[in-house]
């Protein structure tokens, strides 16, 4: 445990902090968690994620896990998926959920907004072709409803259809009967969630000074001890 406890300001953290915008302290906490998840190895594989007990009940678990192995989310213009991620990638993924700071310009805000929406878009666009097709969107909704008891596939399907119809009408306006709407492009996606204020919603508190973090930390260390 002591070996993992990196002191803030360590040189390896400086790069990461620059890259992701996390503070040293936050990186330290996430690093601990990373080590805990990977059982002290250097990389995380999907299996590690699947073992997280709390995640099991999440209806969109597989999509969340996939997002961690998606090259598009590494901010490196890569494509495709990887089998294992290191701490740096883990941190980069997490940085998508970093709240914007208090004083940002309008442009920065827009950039944050695009970044966060891009993450969501990539989660939906599973085949990586730049559009969310109806099939993909249906899949999203089905997953979303997958935990409800009386699962009606048809309901999920029609919800996705209605949503798609809405997207098409918002982004295309009028369409002739024989025209075909390919799917949601990112531009349409931006337009679609215009009033959604994603920049203030898609955020996680990575570092709390209140008791929840302390609690979480104590839990983390307890679990680590148990694992060891």
């Amino acid at each position, binding site marked *: 445990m002591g070996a993992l406890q990196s002191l803030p300001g360590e040189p390896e953290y400086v790069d990461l902090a620059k890259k992701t915008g996390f503070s040293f302290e936050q990186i330290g906490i996430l690093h601990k968690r990373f080590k*805990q998840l990977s059982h002290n190895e250097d990389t995380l594989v999907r299996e590690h994620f699947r073992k997280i007990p709390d995640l099991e009940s999440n209806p969109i678990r597989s999509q969340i896990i996939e997002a961690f192995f998606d090259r598009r989310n590494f901010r490196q213009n890569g494509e495709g998926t990887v089998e294992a991620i290191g701490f740096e990638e883990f941190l980069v993924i997490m940085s998508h959920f970093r709240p914007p700071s208090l004083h940002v310009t309008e442009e920065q805000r827009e950039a944050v907004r695009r970044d966060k929406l891009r993450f969501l878009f990539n989660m939906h666009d599973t085949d990586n072709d730049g559009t969310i097709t109806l099939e993909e969107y249906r899949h999203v909704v089905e997953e979303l409803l997958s935990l409800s008891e009386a699962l009606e596939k048809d309901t999920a399907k029609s919800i996705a259809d*209605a949503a798609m119809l809405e997207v*098409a009408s918002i982004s295309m306006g009028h369409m002739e*009967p024989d025209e*075909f709407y390919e799917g949601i492009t990112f531009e349409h996606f931006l337009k679609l969630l215009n*009033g959604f204020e994603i920049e203030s919603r898609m955020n*996680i*508190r990575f570092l709390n000074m*209140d008791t929840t973090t302390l609690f979480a930390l104590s839990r983390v260390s307890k679990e680590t001890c148990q694992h060891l």
Partner: protein
Amino acid sequence: MTSGTGPRGRPGAGRGLPERGLLLLLVLVLLEGSVVFPLGAASSPDVDPRGHSEDRAVAEESQNYSKKAFPVLSLDYHHIHVPFEIALWVLLASLMKLGFHLIPRLSSIVPESCLLIVVGLLVGGFIKLAGEKVPPVLDSQSFFLCLLPPIILDAGYFLPIRPFMENLGTILMFAVVGTLWNAFFVGGLLYAVCQIQPGNPSDLHNLELLPCLLFASIISAVDPVAVLAVFEEIHINELLHILVFGESLLNDAVTVVLYHLFEEYSGAGTVTILDGVLGVISFLVVALGGVLVGAIYGFLAAFTSRFTSHVRVIEPLFVFVYSYMAYLSAEMFHLSGIMALIACGAVMRPYVEANISHKSHTTIKYFLKMWSSVSETLIFIFLGVATVDGPHSWNWTFVTVTVLLCLVSRVIGVIGLTFVINKFRIVKLTTKDQFIVAYGGLRGAIAFSLGFLLEEKHFPMRDMFLTAIITVIFFTVFVQGMTIKPLVELLAVKKKQEAKRTINEEIHTQFLDHLLTGIEDICGHYGHHHWKDKLNRINKKYVKKCLIADERGREPQLIAFYHKMEMKQAIELVESGGGFKPPSALPSTVSMQNIQPKKPAAAKPVQRALPQLPKGREEEIRTILRSNLQRTRQRLRSYNRHTLVADPYEEGFSDFIIKKQKIIELEKKIIHMNNLTLPAAPPDSPTLCRARLASGTETDFKPAQQQKGKQSSPDPQAYRPKRDSVPTIQVDLASPQSPDSVNLMDEFRANGSRREEEEDQGLTMRPRGEDGRREQLTRCLSDPGPSADEDEDEPFLP
């Protein structure tokens, strides 16, 4: 009501007056006259100088009374004295509200609350001029037991839970720490100011520290009534609204505890550390106890509503009575009644709404709105009346210092607290936000009533306190209340966005919830989302099962939202004319086939032939109409004879039955005829056949798009459109016994029975024309189910 005729007659006579405002004033004067008049007639012999026709009549009557041995007509005002005056006050309040909204220019400048106070001042002034004793309108008993609960229940029942819970930390910080800070800062400095002025002619320096603190604790709490009244009009964004409003609701516990604490020890004179500790414990007990009491009653109400499906008429009553019981029970133990009400309303709402009928829901909504708005109006008027009435003791130093200290402490408090809070918040509060939060700290009638409760015996300075409290209230309501609107515009504070939620936003709200929960779990950090998810799970697994009777009420949020939206679209479709022209609403300019991924080539020609009318769409409309009308009918039928409202659909049941039979007979005849003369037409056309099939299963609502994928396959049930043969959807709303009262009649039946149909009082929808019929359909459709009219509910209540 006799007084009602008086004021309505008079303005007619004085119509020459140019200004509507003067007319309003006249109404007021007359109304006020009628308030004074019965008092005068009953208690003193001197006749009201402004005598009108009623007056004379009454005078004659009383003469009669003295002459005759057996009174044919007697006057016994005392008999009805109290309720009559209450009714008069309510009438006055309602008329004032009416008048206020008749003058649009006025309402854009002055907030309603200010105007109502002015009205109260005038009324009080007139009563005083007339030489009458001003009735003690705003005594604490009636205020806390009658006037306040409706407003708080209204606020609690319609509390926007999501933003409230998301900002709970901030709200609590402002409500608890902020109010404590205000109380001690104002109290302490006030005491200091009083002490450094020994030369002051008044006996201010006699004021001790504890009364000062008591006074400060009364004056430091932000008032929910005043905040609601002002914030309702400025349409500020959700975050700021919930911050200020939530604070005003939750600081009640602090105020209650501080009030009782200081009142208790003002006599004793000393406060030990133990008392302080007890105070803290007492605060926790008062706050949490209030919430607990409220939650218990809330669950009880939810549980009761599970079984009300047979006696729909009393459903709303349960909501009101349980809430009131919660309030009274909390007050009984000196717990925070406001918090109990809020908790009760917020807890019961989701379950109650899933259980009760749509009409009951509407009733609850309107009753709450009505009560709260009348209460609010009365409170402000009474505040004005009480100002005129109250024994005042004006002390320049005390009053000015109080007002200044209140402002200063509020500003310092907000800035200081935001500094701390912003360290924890994800969405930081900007300077503008801080300003609005500080500026929105209005004081109101609760403070006055608490001040009114003080006993003269223990607090010789009571009158001075009351005067200062009133001044602070007036200052905040008038100065801050009137300037906050221009300031909001000036600072370009973000306003409430009016846009409706789209289904995509709903999907992404859900998606984001799960995503964030997942990420939190991956981080191994148990934050907001984690606990919310846990709570939702428990709620779904256990609580909903216990408290909601209907299966449909338990469906996931997204599906519920979708059904709601679908229903709304159907209504729009019908309202926009004919059901076949695409409505102006966005989604229908693009049709389903535009987004279908695989379009079978074989189906193409058929689709092309379709003029602007995709099959899926039409199918959908029909399913929606069918199932919803069916549901509406069932709901109507669930009303038994205890129903108060005469239902237009229920009148003349027998008529329907007879006509129904006629139609059936006619149908048989036509079919028979067709078989003879038109052998080409199949006796059972696919449409008819499908209608029969569908009518059997129409109770479970299934959206229809699912079928459109099959278009290419030779579907025997497929609707084959022809321009001249668009089917009529004929809906028999009120025939109770036939389950297939919703028929799709194709042209070959319609031709023969059209005249018959016309007479039928069932609802008919045709592609073109027949406007009168369509109106009927619209009316019936506008009863879309318990939660379909959410957009009518402003997220924040007035």
